């Protein structure tokens, strides 16, 4: 993994305290999480006495008065100017960041993995893919990097931002104190149990799973129930059309797609809701979950990506996506008032740590080294040690592939074994080396908590990013796994890469084409020791296998 080298001229010069701190965002939207965060930071920076403006390439009409064109930044910036670059999608602003004077830092909101959009929106899928490319390109232009969750920090760390840390997410709670729309509230107050979901209709939010869970809830537990979906829905978009079709196929009653709602209507939705349901598969930080908590609505959420971290042990986070089981959680919240009140109270306590004053103080502490021009810690560049990528190792350490991977690592100096973490933690930690005996193991958080049949590992964005940035020889112990398929064609041409596969999970044509003759099959009964020695010889840069 490449290490960010010292504070150099590309990233701006180390100097005294910044005179102005500006922000650069690809698009400033009204009401979305990134836009709200950008505006909050601007106000905070101005409150601390810095001149602060927002620069964007595109913006909503409602934001016209508070934004400047991104191209003006090069003209406005000086040597004592600091720039916070927000990154959440393809921006094409890397050349501008590279050319701009002054010091720069990255604020990473996370990028939705492209796999969610494949087959539904090719343009967005490509944009997500390019956004991850830009994340790697930005490394050499910024001195500091933050993300809004440990889950995202893990990916930054894997991408070669060694000092990346968490910046507390600031939520403007006052914005939620809006009187509910009386007409909508009256409409919903007909004795039905209202299950609410708020969010954009994109494949990663898995609205189809929300529909499945609600159907199970209505059929098995509460016939007098209603599903409220607040968020833009276009019948002309492929994914949205499939969601509408699924509603027809499942046939639940009282499913209401409200479309884009204003603040008063959203208040009415939360005021009428019995429970908030999220089955999202990817969240960099889930603001609607916190909004539901703030408004006293118990939350049931699928524990993917940064959701367990956002929930912080409050609400009911489930690692099962079985509709009947999740429907059971909705039912207990409705039928057990004591349990419901305990959930709501725990949610309130969770929000206490996100108090605005405390968050503002923590944001200031986090940003101070950057604003004062302190140089990041120097780190020696990582050597070209071999990496063995075995996603299933943590889930099944005694499987033949896992034992082979371990045997290869043990034969190579400084080699490490990268795997997908089996256990989902409420708080993800940046991947770091752990030792299992003499084997150096690095565990990456999966994007989704469920392991498939036969121990098939869920995808992990951090692992994929880490593999793309690996500096030494690589062995895919499981060349048929998703991580090999996604990364092998994007590795540098000079990379030394090999793979080994099992018959139950054969590599696809793309992997076979790239790896060519450097692909071994692990057949049942094959001698693991001799195969490990052969693979270690292939990976060892100096050509001298090393026995520990």
């Amino acid at each position, binding site marked *: 993994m490449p290490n960010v080298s010292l504070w150099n001229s590309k990233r701006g010069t180390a100097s005294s305290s910044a005179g102005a701190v500006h922000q650069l965002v690809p698009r400033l939207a009204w009401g979305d999480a990134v836009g709200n965060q950008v505006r909050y930071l601007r106000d905070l920076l101005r409150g601390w006495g810095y001149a602060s403006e927002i620069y964007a390439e595109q913006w909503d009409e409602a934001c016209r008065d508070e934004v400047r064109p991104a191209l003006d930044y090069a003209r406005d910036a000086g040597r004592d100017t600091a720039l916070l670059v927000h990154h959440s999608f393809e921006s094409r602003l890397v050349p501008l960041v590279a050319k701009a004077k002054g010091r720069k830092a990255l604020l990473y909101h996370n990028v939705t993995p492209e796999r969610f959009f494949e087959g*539904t929106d090719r343009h967005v899928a490509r944009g997500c893919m390019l956004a991850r490319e830009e994340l790697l390109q930005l490394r050499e232009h910024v001195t500091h990097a933050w993300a809004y969750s440990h889950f995202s920090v893990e990916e930054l760390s894997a991408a070669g931002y060694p000092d990346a840390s968490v910046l507390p997410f600031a939520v403007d709670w006052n914005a939620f104190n809006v009187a509910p729309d009386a007409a909508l509230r009256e409409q919903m107050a007909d004795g039905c149990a209202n299950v609410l979901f708020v969010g954009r209709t994109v494949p990663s939010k898995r609205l189809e799973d929300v529909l499945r869970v609600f159907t*199970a809830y209505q059929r098995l537990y509460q016939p007098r129930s209603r599903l409220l979906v607040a968020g833009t829905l276009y019948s002309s978009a492929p994914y949205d059309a499939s969601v509408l*079709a699924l509603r027809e196929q499942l046939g639940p009653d009282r499913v209401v797609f409200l479309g884009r709602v204003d603040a008063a209507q959203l208040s009415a939705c939360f005021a009428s809701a019995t429970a908030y349901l999220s089955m999202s598969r990817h969240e960099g930080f889930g603001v609607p979950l916190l909004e539901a908590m703030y408004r006293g609505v118990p939350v049931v959420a699928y524990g993917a990506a940064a959701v367990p971290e956002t929930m912080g042990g409050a609400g009911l986070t489930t690692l099962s996506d079985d509709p009947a089981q999740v429907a059971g959680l909705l039912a207990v919240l409705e039928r057990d008032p004591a*349990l419901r009140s305990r959930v709501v109270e725990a949610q309130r306590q969770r929000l206490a740590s996100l108090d605005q004053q405390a968050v503002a103080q923590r944001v200031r502490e986090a940003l101070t080294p950057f604003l004062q021009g302190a140089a990041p810690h120097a780190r020696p560049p990582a050597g070209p040690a071999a990496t063995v990528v075995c996603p299933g190792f943590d889930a099944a350490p005694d499987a033949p592939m896992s034992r082979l991977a371990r045997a290869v690592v043990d034969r190579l100096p400084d080699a490490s074994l990268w795997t997908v973490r089996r256990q989902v933690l409420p708080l993800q930690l940046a991947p770091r080396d752990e030792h299992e005996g003499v084997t150096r193991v690095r565990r990456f958080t999966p994007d989704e908590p469920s392991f498939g049949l036969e121990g098939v590992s869920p995808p992990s964005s951090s692992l994929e990013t880490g593999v793309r940035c690996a500096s030494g020889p690589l062995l895919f112990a499981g060349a048929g796994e998703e991580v090999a398929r996604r990364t092998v064609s994007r590795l540098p041409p000079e990379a030394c890469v090999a793979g080994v596969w099992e018959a139950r999970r054969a590599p696809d044509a793309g992997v076979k084409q790239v790896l060519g003759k450097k692909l071994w099959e692990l057949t049942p009964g094959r001698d693991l020791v001799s195969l490990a020695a052969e693979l270690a010889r292939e990976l060892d840069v100096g050509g001298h296998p090393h026995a520990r």
Partner: protein
Amino acid sequence: MRAEDLITRDPTVEAVLESLARLPTPEPEKVEALRRRLAATQAPAINAAWPPFLEGARLKRDARYADPPSSHRPLVGPALVMAKRAFRLAFQPFINEALRRQVEFNEAILDALALIHEHQRVQARTQSLWRQEVERQLEQLLSRLPPTPQEPPKEPPRRAPSRRRGR
């Protein structure tokens, strides 16, 4: 639900599981009907490839670059090919700019056609599922009906006397 599938600090996982256990057990017929419905509506694996009927058009969507120049003339042919190549090399930036909007239109129309294709596929699947569901419910209804008693074979109706008057 298994304890390891739940993350909650307060109430504890055990308290939630106890509350779940107190829920009334849903009727087996309802559970079975739900299981069948959920299984029937499981979306097929997403196919990221273009629909085959659009593949040909997709390969030709970029109108800026034509096929490699060629000529059937035996003697002047090579000179013509060279001239064509030189022309394209010199004017390619202008060709690109002139055809940029055409390429954008081609891509947009291909996306629209792919979307219509997807809509049709989803609609067909929805209708098929509805038909299967209706047939299944019809069968259930018919099976619940009491068996109809055997009616005695009816005699063929006697022919009524003709009202026609003979002329």
